[in-house]
């Protein structure tokens, strides 16, 4: 009788034998069957990572667009009770000197309305064809060099400094792109490139021509009317150099919170509202982001259940069809634990292969591919939002589910009577 082993020695031996069996089972298994199982695991992993990543990325895309075309890393805006940012020029100078500063653009804003049928005589009961939005005065060259907004003109052309009677209209204000007819929100009908419209700001009206239509997938931009800043200043009677918005962009190593703190510490916070791009996000966007994250997690959870069931079925079918094999192993004295280890290790192998191939696909192909060619969702350029931590957590959960799903069916089959298994009863 061999000498009695400790619990740990027995566990180590069982693991070694399980490993010995698993390696050979995998090596000599049907290649097509293995490929099929690994393919299922790859798809399961993609389901876990990509589906939730795209759901979150859909909103991330919108947030990124908002940051790139509107807020920058930090946005300074007038306090609600003030008409403009006081001491704007001083603040601009301070902003240009904060660490990691890259560029900035300033804007003038005022509520306004555009009308397209203002020359027609309205019949009784007919309403004016109009749309309201924030009229934004920009230095066209500066704004474009910082936000690249000219790339987002989907019809017509971008403004230049000499366009004193032209405007750009966000697509959310046009019926053609946003066919909404609700009592509280109206979009402009019969308006195209070259259409003359009446722009009313601060009680002052001017005829303007629609020169371009913007579709940036940043809600704040697509609901605005852009014109040359000098013209808007005339309309609102702004004679000083005070502006309404300053969007500050940092270089790649810059941190928005640090930049905001630097501005606040310099006293900017006393004259205007200083927000990071994240803080400036509208609440509904934050809510949608949270909602999609929950949805993503729900899909991931369902994906995980599907993955567990898949592994369970694979291992169960494998174990059931090899019931006699298991019976023989037990018959010649191979421990229950060693056989269980062999099945768990096989399950881990399939999951690991699926995860490795999945990681290569996600980070080598899908993520860079989508980053280069974002998915054209109606309200955002969807990216694949994945984080290293999120992916690692999903891998750990998938592995854990795999071990459980590999263990249970093996246990069920192993628990059957040895002789019945050998004789196939």
């Amino acid at each position, binding site marked *: 009788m061999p000498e009695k082993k400790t619990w740990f020695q027995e566990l180590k031996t069982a693991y070694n034998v399980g490993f010995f*069996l698993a390696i050979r089972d995998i090596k000599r298994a049907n290649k097509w069957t293995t490929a099929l199982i690994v393919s299922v695991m790859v798809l399961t992993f993609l389901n876990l990572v990509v589906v939730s990543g795209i759901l979150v990325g859909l909103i991330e895309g919108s947030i990124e667009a908002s940051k790139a075309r509107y807020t920058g890393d930090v946005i300074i805006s007038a306090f609600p009770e003030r008409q403009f940012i006081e001491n704007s020029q001083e603040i601009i100078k301070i902003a240009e000197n904060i660490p990691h500063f890259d560029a900035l653009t300033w804007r003038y804003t005022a509520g306004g309305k555009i009308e397209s049928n203002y020359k027609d005589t309205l019949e009784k009961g007919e309403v004016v064809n109009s749309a309201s939005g924030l009229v934004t005065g920009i230095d066209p060259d500066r704004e474009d060099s910082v936000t690249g907004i000219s790339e987002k003109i989907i019809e017509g052309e971008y403004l230049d400094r000499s366009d004193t009677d032209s405007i750009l209209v966000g697509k959310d204000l046009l019926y053609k792109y946003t066919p909404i007819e609700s009592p509280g929100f109206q979009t402009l009908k019969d308006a195209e490139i070259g259409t003359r419209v009446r722009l009313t700001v601060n009680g002052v009206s001017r005829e303007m021509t629609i020169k371009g239509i913007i579709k940036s997938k940043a809600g704040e931009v697509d609901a605005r009317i852009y014109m040359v800043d000098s013209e808007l200043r005339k309309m609102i009677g702004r004679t000083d150099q005070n502006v309404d918005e300053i969007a500050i962009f940092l270089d790649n190593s810059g941190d928005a919170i640090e930049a905001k703190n630097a501005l606040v510490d310099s006293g900017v916070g006393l004259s205007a509202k200083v927000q990071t791009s994240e803080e400036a996000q509208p609440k509904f966007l934050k809510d949608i982001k949270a909602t999609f994250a929950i949805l993503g997690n729900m899909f991931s959870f369902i994906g995980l259940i599907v993955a567990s069931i898949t592994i369970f079925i694979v291992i169960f079918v494998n174990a059931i069809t090899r019931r006699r094999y298991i019976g023989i192993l037990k018959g*010649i004295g191979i421990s229950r634990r060693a056989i269980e280890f062999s099945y768990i290790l096989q399950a881990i192998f399939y999951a690991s292969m699926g995860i490795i191939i999945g990681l290569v696909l996600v980070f080598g192909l899908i993520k860079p591919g989508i980053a280069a060619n974002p998915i054209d969702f109606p309200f955002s350029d969807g990216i694949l939002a994945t984080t290293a931590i999120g992916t690692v957590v999903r891998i750990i959960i998938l592995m854990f589910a795999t071990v459980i799903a590999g263990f249970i069916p093996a246990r069920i089959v192993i628990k059957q009577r040895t002789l019945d298994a*050998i004789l196939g009863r």
Partner: protein
Amino acid sequence: MKDIIKIENLRRVFKSGEAEIIAVNDLSFSVPEGQFLAITGKSGSGKSTLLYQLGLLDHPTSGNITIADIPVEKLRSDDRTKFRLNFLGYVFQDYAVLPSLTAEENVMLPLLMQGIEFSKAKEMSDSALQKVGLAHRKGNTPSQLSGGEQQRVSIARAIVHNPKILFADEPTANLDTETSRSILTAFLELNKQGQTIIMVTHEEEYARLAHRIINLADGKIIKDTNL
């Protein structure tokens, strides 16, 4: 010689609905160490059932089995597996070699389970295959071996860990005459070296090669002959 197996009042009853089938009926006998015992009988006589009880592959309905002074019928499932690993060797009727392992790996398996190091197990496995004349096919999987060769692998696997008792359940049932003789020659060689062997067979000619024949009918011993 000291008795390696002792059984007393061994019964194995199968239930089929209301009916009871007594496969092994109140058997008592002992087997001395080093004996080559053949258990014979017609189909349904209970010979295989008896072998399964002795080999701890099945539980008796009642009675006692003592192997190497250990009352084995009281062992728990995991301990029975451990006991089979350390004390017993099996040769099954249909070879029961593991299809995903080579001949050498099949034979190594019980040794690895005993905690013997891989290189040592490999060496012992090769030596066991040498004993059954199959060293040259050690790298082949069962699908690449003939029935006789698979049975030799099965024998090598059964003896590699020096079991106290070697059980063989109709080891020649699926083999041609020439191969059957070579398998029995291997058994006789092992027995000469002191190996206790208990073999179930329905072929009188092969049973007569043993030291002793127990003939069963309806689960009872009808003849116990020392040759």
